[in-house]
């Protein structure tokens, strides 16, 4: 043990005081540190700072781009909403117009149909009247002829004279009509 202590103490020799520096060691540390500072100032710090700046720019650029895209999207949405509102109003307007037009057409058709039906009715009336008239005339002459023929058969041939026969028949019918008129009253 004692030998160890002695050998440790004598190893340092004269420069055993640890607070006394070795000048060569100081010189080497100075040179080494200066070299390191040079490399750090020249290469390491600029490269790292450049990377940091690029990264910050990339992130901020990305944020700005996203904000722009969002603004564009909301503008487009606003535009679509506006267009949708316009389209709805347009559709409403067209529907209203169609409804009014339809009502108009319906009214026209009704009117036209009414006029047509009135015309057809009137025509039918006229036709019926004229046919009745024709029937009356035909009947009168036919019934007269039949009656005179029948009467002539009964009475003999005296009534074959047309003029006399017509007079008789007319008179008879006039009586009939006046009777009918009297009964109707």
């Amino acid at each position, binding site marked *: 043990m004692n030998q160890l202590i002695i050998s440790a103490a004598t190893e340092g020799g004269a420069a055993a005081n640890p607070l006394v520096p070795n000048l060569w060691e100081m010189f080497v*540390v100075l040179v*080494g540190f200066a070299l390191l*500072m040079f490399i750090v100032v020249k290469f390491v710090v600029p490269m790292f700072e450049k990377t940091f700046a690029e990264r910050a720019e990339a992130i901020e650029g990305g944020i700005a781009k996203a904000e722009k895209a969002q603004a564009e999207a909301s503008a487009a949405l606003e535009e679509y909403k506006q267009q949708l509102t316009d389209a709805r109003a347009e559709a409403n307007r067209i529907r209203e117009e169609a409804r009014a037009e339809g009502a108009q057409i319906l009214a026209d058709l009704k009117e036209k149909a009414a006029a047509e039906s009135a015309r057809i009715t009137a025509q039918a009336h006229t036709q019926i009247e004229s046919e009745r008239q024709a029937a009356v005339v035909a009947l009168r002459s036919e019934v007269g002829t039949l009656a005179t023929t029948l009467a002539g058969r009964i009475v003999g041939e005296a009534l074959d004279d047309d003029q006399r026969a017509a007079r008789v028949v007319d008179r008879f019918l006039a009586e009939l009509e006046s009777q009918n008129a009297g009964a109707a009253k």
Partner: protein
Amino acid sequence: MHLPAILPWGAADGFSKQMLLVLLSVVIIATFFVLAARKQQLVPGKLQFAGEMAYGFVRNSIAKDIIGGKDFMKYVPLLFSLFFFILVNNIYGAIPLFQLPTFSHVGGAYVLAGIVYVTWIAIGIKKNGIRYFKLATVPSGVPFYILPIVVPIEIISNFVVRPVTHSLRLFATMLAGHLIVMIAGYGIEFLVMQENILLQGTSVLVLAGAIAMYMLEALIMVLQAYVFTLLTAIYIEGALHADSH
């Protein structure tokens, strides 16, 4: 105190293992970060992500949080270099075969603390002119009859003690950790060589203690790199904003 030097001419005034480790640390740090930063992809790979995490830690958690403002970027290279230079050189002490925290030799700590000392005084003068020394030593709002006591204290604490503690804190923690692990090693060796079997058995306890101390030392290695860088940032911030302190 020296573990075997790599080269036979490694004694007090030759090219020592400590010097080789310092230069190796520059190669390690520069290679790692140049490789990590080189690709500059927006979506980083594993290596780039690790580099960005490490760089971002110094840039944001130390430089930005302490110095703040618009001009903290000017001091990021210094803080970044300091942190990783000290970190790698400390961690050497926890790596088998290397087993030498570079700053357990006081020279390196003097150099780094000296660089920081010159830097923050230069920043203070550049920012506030020669009036900076008044701002740094005469606190505002102190009654005039206390000033004769306060001003010497401020001068000593800011301009004399500060660089000394800044360098010795790093050096002392590294040296102490190095010594503790080494003493534990010697202790184990000593106990194992005893003839009493029971006394030999106690070396297991020392081994357990040595492992625990090794873990603690590894923690302190990282912590001291952080503390040194953090204090640098605080000194720079104090010099920048001397008129508001």
